[in-house]
């Protein structure tokens, strides 16, 4: 039973990872990454890591992917510009180098002797056990991660909202002013219309 779930989940994980890398449209890539994360969460559940699997879904699929999709929608079709193809020798070299790394690891891993799976305590991988370890033995790492996250949030705001946007040329400034003047005029006339309608309604 376990082995069936394992092969289904790992097949889906590999297929979706290939889709992430190969898709031209970043939107489709992001959705494929979502599938990759969910199938990896299944693999984590097979390893009895319930809390990490839940955190994987909540943190990655919930928070990080929403941020990705938001930025992809913000950037729009411009993000597809960079998806042009490489020279063939670059593609072959990259695939060859990566395949060598994978094959190397696989050969080593299947040649090595590992111990059997350890016998587990009843609370292995539960939020209680993880939380206890996080709040006692790994408190320093926990605090450092929270400081890093805070710094990253500040950096994200500074990069995204700060800085000086492109200066408008004089023609664009004039066009913008004309547009806002037109809008103000339209709003004023609408206010007048509303006022007349109200007073007519009261009269009747």
């Amino acid at each position: 039973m376990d082995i069936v779930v394992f092969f289904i989940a790992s097949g889906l994980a590999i297929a979706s990872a290939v889709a992430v890398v190969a898709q031209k449209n970043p939107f489709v890539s992001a959705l494929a990454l979502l599938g990759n994360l969910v199938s990896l969460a299944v693999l984590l559940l097979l390893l009895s890591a319930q809390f990490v699997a839940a955190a994987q879904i909540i943190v990655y699929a919930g928070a990080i992917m929403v941020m990705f999709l938001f930025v992809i929608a913000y950037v729009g079709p411009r993000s597809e510009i960079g998806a042009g193809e490489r020279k063939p020798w670059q593609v072959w070299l990259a695939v060859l180098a990566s395949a060598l790394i994978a094959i190397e690891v696989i050969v080593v891993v299947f040649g090595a002797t590992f111990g059997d799976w350890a016998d587990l305590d009843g609370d292995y991988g539960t939020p209680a056990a993880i939380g206890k370890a996080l709040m006692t033995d790994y408190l320093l790492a926990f605090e450092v991660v929270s400081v890093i996250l805070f710094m990253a949030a500040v950096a994200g705001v500074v990069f995204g909202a700060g800085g000086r946007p492109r200066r408008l040329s004089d023609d664009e400034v004039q066009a913008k002013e004309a547009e806002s003047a037109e809008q103000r005029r339209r709003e004023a006339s609408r206010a007048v219309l509303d006022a007349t309608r109200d007073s007519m309604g009261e009269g009747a």
Partner: protein
Amino acid sequence: MTVGLPLFLAISAILFSIGLVGVLLRRSPLTILLSLEVMLNSVNLTLVAFSREVGGSDGQIFALIVMGIAAAEVVVGLGLVVAMTRREMVLDTDELRTLNG
């Protein structure tokens, strides 16, 4: 538990190398960040698999901290992409060669 540890490690290595191909070949910064996520997640799988083999929770804590750092990395990376968009720069890593020696 009938699936052995080597299978988990092999899947993790395959996912890592697929992500590596994406980081090496793609030119859009957004897709490079997405491929990086694939690589980080494959390493998380390795950490949790070894943690399961030993029977301790240390590897799982490590994986959670990697998730936190990945979130920070994505925030900074996406912030850079937004800043590039606001300045109307081309979103192509081959075109961004101002710092190229």
